[in-house]
């Protein structure tokens, strides 16, 4: 059993003795009503040829390929190319399109953080988020606490993320909707003048584009990419 000591409750449907040279988490058996419901709906949709397993798998992979690295590229371009930055602020959809991103059927608004003004994004009503640019939202973004408190006490919320701004910086919270999404352009850290666009993109964390943190190098601490 020694090789299994660090795995959890290990049981397989197939008893065939395959060896475990690689460690892969076991699929948890469903326990919740809604997990059973997911299986039932999926199997019915597949039986009726409305969806296929392949399509679902491809969709899951497409989601996994969308990550904050997309948004970071856009921010790094805005930091290095002033004309691009202005186009991005004027028409978010068109400017991200220049870099190959599409934000379908939604208005995309880019908001620039400065020494005087800091933006942060929330969706108080649900979980609207710029998925094509940042991937799937973190769980906290969808939490009751973040949704309720961010518009009530944004500085207290920022503090929980380790972000403390001078009192002279105005904090502006923007509430996303089903039809309009926001992307925060964080402040560019000082001393990064010589960096390439690729190196700059690495300073742009997911949270800095939501506005709960600043870019790395500016006291942005949470590495959440």
């Amino acid at each position, binding site marked *: 059993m020694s090789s299994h000591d660090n795995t959890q409750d290990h*049981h*397989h*449907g197939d008893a065939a003795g395959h060896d475990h040279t690689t460690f892969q988490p076991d*699929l*948890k*058996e*469903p326990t*919740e009503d*809604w*997990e*059973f*419901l*997911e*299986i*039932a*709906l*999926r*199997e*019915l*949709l*597949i039986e*009726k040829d*409305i*969806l296929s*397993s392949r*399509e*679902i798998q491809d*969709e*899951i992979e497409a*989601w996994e390929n969308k990550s904050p690295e997309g948004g970071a590229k856009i921010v790094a371009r805005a930091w290095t190319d002033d004309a691009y930055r202005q186009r991005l602020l004027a028409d978010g959809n068109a400017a991200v399109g220049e870099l190959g991103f599409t934000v379908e059927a939604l208005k995309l608004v880019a908001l620039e953080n400065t020494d005087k003004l800091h933006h942060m994004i*929330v969706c*108080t*009503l*649900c*979980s609207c988020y710029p998925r094509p640019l940042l991937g*799937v939202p*973190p*769980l*906290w973004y*969808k*939490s*009751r*606490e*973040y*949704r*309720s*408190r*961010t*518009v*009530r006490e944004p500085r207290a*919320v920022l503090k*929980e*993320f380790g972000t403390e701004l001078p009192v002279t910086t105005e904090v502006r919270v923007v*509430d996303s909707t*089903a039809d309009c999404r926001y992307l925060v352009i964080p402040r560019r850290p000082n001393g990064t003048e010589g960096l390439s666009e690729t190196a700059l993109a690495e300073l742009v964390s997911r949270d800095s584009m939501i506005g709960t943190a600043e870019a790395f190098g500016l006291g942005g601490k*949470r590495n*959440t990419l």
Partner: protein
Amino acid sequence: MTDRAISDLGGLTGGPIDISEHQPTLSERRIDAMMMLLRKKPQAFWVTDENRRTIESLEPKAYEESAYYERWVLAIRALLIEKSVLGEAEIEAKLAEVRARPAGYTREDQR
């Protein structure tokens, strides 16, 4: 307490935010994928506003106590019935069959 919609959380008080990161489970990924696919298929069974409306019309207790993707899968169920894609009886029958599977066989590895 003001009379507000269950989803209208902006401005309410609350405890500390759990800022830990979570990897979505396979069930959650599949629910997300199904929702996206059913919305974007050529026949687009529904639009975003309809699934929001469905989630927001859950019973307050169900909305409060449900996990995020639990609300989504409940919305998918409701919309599939509303759009006559699936019938309530066949969903219940399938659900009973899935639940009756022996442990280890509940999740068929579909290829």
